[in-house]
């Protein structure tokens, strides 16, 4: 039935984490756009403040709740807003699970809210493995042999029946958390226990490792019209999670007959579950006999559907939303092609390759091997006209130091080992394996990867060997470019510099052509603005300005999401583009990340789904002749292009490149601060271990050790003594041999604050001070931010503002900037300065209701503003909290330190610090059901936390503590249950109380940030993570958290929308209804 309600609630996905990332900003945003087009009032619940979908922009939701996605909170929102319908399929597994809870608890029925799209019963059939299996068996579709288990004993029995090795999966999970190969009963005992702690049910399944893996994306309307929009093939076969696989679309190794079989089954499955909207179906195919299994059905938008959408240009989420509202496929216009209706299966005349982006190496002691659990934090998608071209383009998009396969910075001594036991580096190991003359069949034996893919990689390697042997020729150069070799890599092979190779190439008439994403197979002329570049082509599909125009602005996006560079920069790019278009500029966007909103067809005038490399940006700029290039809104990747682009004569908008370099280059920036008489922590650039030690001795330990150019604290570390320094120096030198190592004083017991702002020609237009809750020493990306600051001296604020003014003036800043400070009493020191939008820009913009990117874009265009912006005296508080993904990163020590580890963030607004903090904490998927708390606190911090614990004891909380803390507490009037530490024997043991789920929150404050996997503290922290028990490791956070428990633990939280809090508008529901 056509939906005729007036109000729809959309559930978002919360903070970005491994397994659930930016793709849901894309799908949620498109769903909202679909509602807008229908004139339906949209209400969004999502605490992820860095997303585009939570914008106040007119194109986005009518009402946004930056609130935790929990049952009580969403229930309260439903009670208040009284929506007619709800969208569950646009916010990932989080929204789906929450939706089912709302359904099960009859909240939806009570308030007459209908689930739009696939019905709740059908969703449950796809989620519950037992129902799933039985349902598909009924229609004769094969699924892996599997048995569900609710206890460890049941799991053991099931495994025995199926036969080891078996596959273990956890029901109702995201990204395959807790799944893996179980070779024996003893491993099963351990893993099943762990999994059942997180999920009510686990699956023991037939082991299909080595089978080929395919995914089909399906859309289906309420009358049963069904399409397969895209099929995708995982290059890495079964055994490696789809999110960890290199994925190719369309599938490459299927025969037409096989493809039609799978397509038919996919449609049959979608019909069986009565899917209305979008779903994704995963297949495993036995390479030996073609036998198949349906592995999984996601009755919602997923990471794969986002990829499929970007791969085909088919707006899957938008169409899914329309179908959920009751439209038929043939009634919906395909707004990308402009020519077709949505009832048209895309046909691709190109192919795309997705490669995941991992950051496991940034997390000390986390394993690098990849498998059935997702660990990657982002992805890129290369579009090309050959597999080689698309693959190598994708490599250059990853931003891991390789511009294509040939210049990957790591040399493998034993590539075979890497291939057989895959890590994030397997692709590069394969390449080097082939460079050394090894065969495809040997690689196939080691990896189970289809020989078709291996042969393509081998061809690239063989070509590189040929290039080295043969003399330079334009013919070879053209071939190299068609195979996807970068100018940079070719320059290296030919021992030239990149720019001179470029000149040679252009002079030889070898340049890429611009192609449209053409999914119409030539049946109609494609009219899309969605573009890519290829060397396989004769002419451009689009027209270009002949002369440079100031109305054309190139905006460089963020590239892949990684730790330290995430959805916040997509928000910045989208908002830049929106402002440009409002100012009647032509916004041309470049980005390489399929999980983004900026790569949506309607967010720019032209979209290049392309590499953010010096080479490719030049290619595009040469064609488009932009009046300016904005490099300061996409994070560090485009920021690093400022100097080379400016040197090559391209017009950079905003702060001058030489001044950007001055802020980035430690020596130059330090000299500037000295000249301005601004304090900074003592530091020295050391060229030898001896001089480093000497300097560290002179300033006193602890010291911070880092390479001079940094991205998200990579390779940073704190040395507490000379031995540790020696150890870290070895590692840091490996990371960046071109740069000396910087040793600086590591300041403890100091406050950290940052200023985000916008300036024009060295004058500040707007600035906002945020305070870190954690003392100095925690990376700013992992810190909890409070805005406005709640615990700073007025004098500190005054001095910080003055220093900011001086730096802004000295660097003649135009556009966005971010400066970080350390404050000890009223002594202010500057630690970092970025002349680009920072990760806190969306937070600051949405808390103050002044869009910093909008202001910055205008500033970069030279538009003056005389407006005065208030950012300090707000009558509410915003708290931004990091979202960690430690659960997925087995072995990583979950203590925030100088290297960033969080994968996302959330932010909530509240009446005061505690209100806002508590909501933000709940919004990070944390929660407590019982008043049970375990404390294990280093001596130094015991006294600080005592008053809170005394209060909780009085309030009837059950406290558990380890030895030292127990003695301290009992002496100070606090009774607690004693537990043995992991290194001790005896009951009650820490291990037992955790496994029995007697603890709801663990506060473990280590004495310092030295990470050692040998300590009791580490084991406590790791166990907390593995058993999904909320953990606090920072003393300042612990104080606030404990106060929240005292004040707010069992209180019903009143819910207010962003607009009600920030704009002081109370919604008059009657009025809204009248308007509608």
């Amino acid at each position, binding site marked *: 039935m056509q939906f005729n309600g007036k109000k729809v609630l959309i559930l978002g996905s919360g903070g970005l984490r491994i397994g659930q990332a930016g793709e849901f900003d894309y799908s949620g945003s498109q769903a909202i756009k679909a509602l807008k087009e229908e004139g339906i009032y949209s209400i969004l619940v999502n605490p992820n403040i860095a997303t585009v979908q939570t914008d106040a922009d007119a194109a986005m939701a009518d009402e946004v709740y930056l609130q935790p996605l929990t049952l009580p909170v969403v229930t309260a929102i439903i009670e208040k807003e009284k929506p007619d319908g709800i969208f569950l399929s646009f916010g990932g597994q989080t929204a789906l699970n929450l939706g089912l809870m709302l359904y099960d608890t009859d909240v939806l029925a009570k308030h007459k809210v209908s689930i739009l799209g696939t019905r709740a019963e059908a969703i449950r059939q796809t989620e519950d493995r037992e129902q799933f299996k039985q349902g598909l068996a009924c229609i004769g579709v094969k699924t892996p042999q599997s048995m569900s288990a609710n206890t460890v004993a049941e799991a053991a029995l099931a495994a025995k029946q199926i036969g080891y090795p078996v596959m273990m999966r956890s029901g109702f999970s995201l990204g395959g958390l807790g799944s893996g190969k179980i070779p024996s009963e003893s491993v099963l005992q351990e893993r099943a226990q762990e999994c059942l702690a997180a999920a009510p049910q686990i699956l023991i399944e037939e082991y299909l490792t080595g089978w080929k893996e395919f995914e089909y994306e399906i859309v289906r309307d309420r009358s049963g019209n069904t399409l397969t929009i895209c099929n995708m093939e995982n290059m890495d076969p079964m055994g490696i999670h789809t999110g960890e696989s290199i994925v190719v679309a369309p599938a490459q190794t299927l025969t037409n007959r096989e493809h039609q079989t799978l397509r038919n089954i996919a449609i049959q499955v979608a019909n069986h579950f009565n899917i209305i909207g979008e779903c994704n179906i995963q297949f495993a195919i036995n390479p030996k006999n073609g036998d198949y299994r349906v592995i999984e059905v996601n009755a919602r938008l997923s990471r794969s559907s986002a990829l499929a959408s970007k791969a085909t240009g088919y707006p899957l989420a938008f169409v899914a939303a329309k179908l959920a509202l009751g439209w038929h496929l043939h009634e919906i216009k395909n707004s990308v092609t402009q020519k077709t209706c949505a009832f048209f299966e895309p046909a691709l005349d190109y192919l795309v390759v997705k490669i995941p982006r991992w950051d496991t190496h940034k997390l000390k002691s986390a394993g690098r091997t990849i498998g059935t659990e997702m660990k990657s934090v982002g992805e890129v998608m290369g579009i090309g006209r050959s597999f080689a071209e698309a693959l190598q383009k994708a490599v250059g998009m990853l931003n891991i130091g390789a511009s294509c396969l040939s210049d990957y910075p790591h040399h493998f001594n034993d590539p075979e080992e890497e291939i057989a036991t895959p890590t994030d580096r397997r692709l590069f190991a394969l390449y080097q394996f082939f460079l050394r003359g090894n065969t495809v069949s040997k690689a196939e034996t080691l990896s189970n990867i289809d020989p078709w893919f291996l042969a393509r990689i081998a061809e690239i390697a063989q070509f590189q060997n040929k290039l080295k042997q043969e003399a330079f020729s334009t013919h070879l150069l053209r071939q190299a470019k068609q195979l996807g070799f970068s100018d940079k890599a070719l320059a290296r092979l030919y021992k030239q510099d990149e720019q001179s190779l470029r000149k040679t190439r252009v002079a030889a008439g070898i340049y890429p052509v611009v192609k449209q994403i053409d999914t119409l197979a030539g049946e109609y002329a494609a009219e899309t603005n969605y573009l890519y570049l290829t060397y396989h082509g004769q002419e451009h599909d689009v027209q270009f300005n002949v002369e440079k125009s100031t109305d054309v602005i190139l905006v460089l996006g963020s590239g892949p999401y990684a730790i330290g560079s995430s959805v916040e920069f997509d928000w910045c790019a989208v908002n830049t583009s929106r402002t440009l278009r409002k100012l009647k500029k032509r916004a041309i966007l470049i980005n390489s990340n399929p999980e983004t909103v900026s790569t949506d067809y309607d967010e720019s005038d032209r979209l290049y789904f392309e590499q953010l490399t010096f080479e490719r940006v030049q290619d595009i700029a040469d064609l488009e002749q932009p009046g300016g290039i904005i490099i300061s809104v996409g994070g560090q990747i485009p920021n690093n292009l400022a100097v080379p682009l400016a040197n090559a004569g391209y017009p950079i908008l905003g702060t001058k490149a030489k001044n950007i370099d001055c802020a980035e280059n430690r020596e130059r920036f330090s000299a500037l601060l000295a000249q301005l008489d601004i304090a900074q922590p003592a530091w020295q650039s050391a060229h030898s271990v001896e001089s480093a030690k000497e300097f560290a001795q002179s300033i006193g330990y602890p010291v911070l050790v880092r390479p001079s150019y940094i991205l998200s604290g990579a390779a940073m570390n704190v040395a507490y003594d000379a031995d540790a320094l020696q150890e870290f120096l070895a590692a840091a030198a490996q990371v960046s041999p071109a740069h000396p190592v910087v040793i600086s004083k590591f300041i403890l017991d100091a406050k950290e604050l940052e200023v985000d702002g916008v300036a024009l020609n060295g004058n500040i237009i707007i600035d906002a001070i945020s305070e870190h809750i954690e003392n100095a020493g925690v990376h700013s990306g992992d810190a909890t931010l409070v805005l406005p600051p709640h615990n700073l001296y007025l004098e500190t604020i005054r001095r910080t503002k003055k220093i900011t003014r001086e730096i802004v003036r000295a660097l003649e800043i135009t556009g966005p900037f971010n400066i970080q400070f350390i404050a000890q009493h009223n002594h202010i020191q500057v630690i970092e300065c970025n002349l680009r939008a920072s990760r806190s820009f969306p937070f600051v913009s949405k808390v103050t209701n002044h869009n910093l990117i909008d202001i910055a874009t205008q500033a970069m265009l030279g538009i003056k503003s005389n407006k005065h912006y208030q950012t300090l005296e707000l009558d509410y508080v915003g708290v931004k909290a990091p979202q960690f993904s430690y659960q997925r990163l087995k072995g990583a020590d979950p203590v925030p330190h100088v290297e960033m580890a969080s994968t996302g963030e959330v932010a909530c607004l509240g009446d005061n610090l505690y209100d806002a903090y508590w909501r933000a904490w709940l919004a990070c998927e944390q929660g407590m059901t019982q008043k049970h708390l375990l404390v294990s606190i280093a001596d130094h911090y015991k006294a600080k936390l005592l008053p809170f614990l005394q209060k909780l*004891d*009085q309030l009837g909380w059950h406290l558990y503590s380890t030895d030292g803390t127990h003695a301290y*507490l*009992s*002496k100070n*009037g606090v*009774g607690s249950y*004693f537990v043995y530490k992991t290194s001790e024997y005896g009951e*009650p043991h820490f291990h037992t109380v955790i496994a029995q789920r007697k603890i709801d929150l663990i506060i473990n404050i280590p004495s310092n940030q030295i990470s050692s996997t040998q300590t009791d503290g580490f084991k406590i922290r790791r166990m907390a993570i593995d058993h999904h028990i909320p953990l606090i490791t920072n003393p300042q956070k612990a104080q606030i958290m404990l106060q929240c428990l005292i004040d707010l633990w069992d209180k019903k939280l009143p819910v207010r929308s962003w607009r009600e809090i920030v704009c002081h508008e109370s919604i008059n529901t009657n009025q809204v209804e009248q308007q509608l």
Partner: protein
Amino acid sequence: MNALFKRDLITIKNLSKAEIDIILNLAQQYKITPPAPSLSNKMIAHCFFEASTRTRLSFETAALRLGAKTIGFDSDQSLSVQKGETLTDTLKVISAYADLIVIRHAKEGAAALAANLIECPVINAGDGANQHPTQALLDFFTIKECQNEINGLSIALVGDLKYGRAIHSFTQMCAHYDIRLYLLSPEHLSLPTSICDHLKKQGVRFSYHQDLAEIISKIDILYITRIQQERFTAPQSELFKNPYVINMELLKNAKANLKILHPLPRVNEIDPEVDHSPFAYYFAQAANGVYVRQAILTLLLNEFLP
């Protein structure tokens, strides 16, 4: 078959939670309906090597009400011990007459020694500063009686926690329940470390406090003991004068359900004006001694419950 038949009761550690429940439930039954005399053919010896009024009379009353015959003494002044006879010889001789021996002695471990030595069941009625299990059982019987439920209670132990044997047995009982303990004692009379360690490992929450007024509003039971003057020399006892005195002023902030317990005799710990308040429960507590001891004697001496 009754599991406690022919067993010794030397310390609470001899008992499982289930056995404790059996004793407390039987005592409860006896309090409502006086038992038939099931021990009419039994001889119980009350060997009080150390002076006692309440405990001895309570045991004797229990025995007599159950129809048993009793022998014994209430001080070692009149004994052959005075003539140089050893404890072991004395007990061996008495065990030849009695079916059960109730022993109190000034030396820690005396009851255990007796139990090892002789065949018939031995009940420890207090051995020096060590244990007094029947007192703890009657204390918990009383707590259950006045608060309905033992789990979840907050209990303050006040006074001489170092030498108070009733306290020591009391803490052993705590291990069987989810109890929050507040410990208040003069500085040199705090609970022995070994006992604290035991409490800790048994999952009992406890904390140390100085000021009774500070915690009075949090507790359900206030268990106070006298300073065990007999364990000190005269100048020492001056040093350990009890700093804790309960009066109506202090009780102003008490919870309505607070009950005060005391193993008695009291010296000056409780102001007599408190006796008339609803908080006073120490005399009811003393009266309960008979029911609990009846239950214990019945269980130790009957293979099958009557």
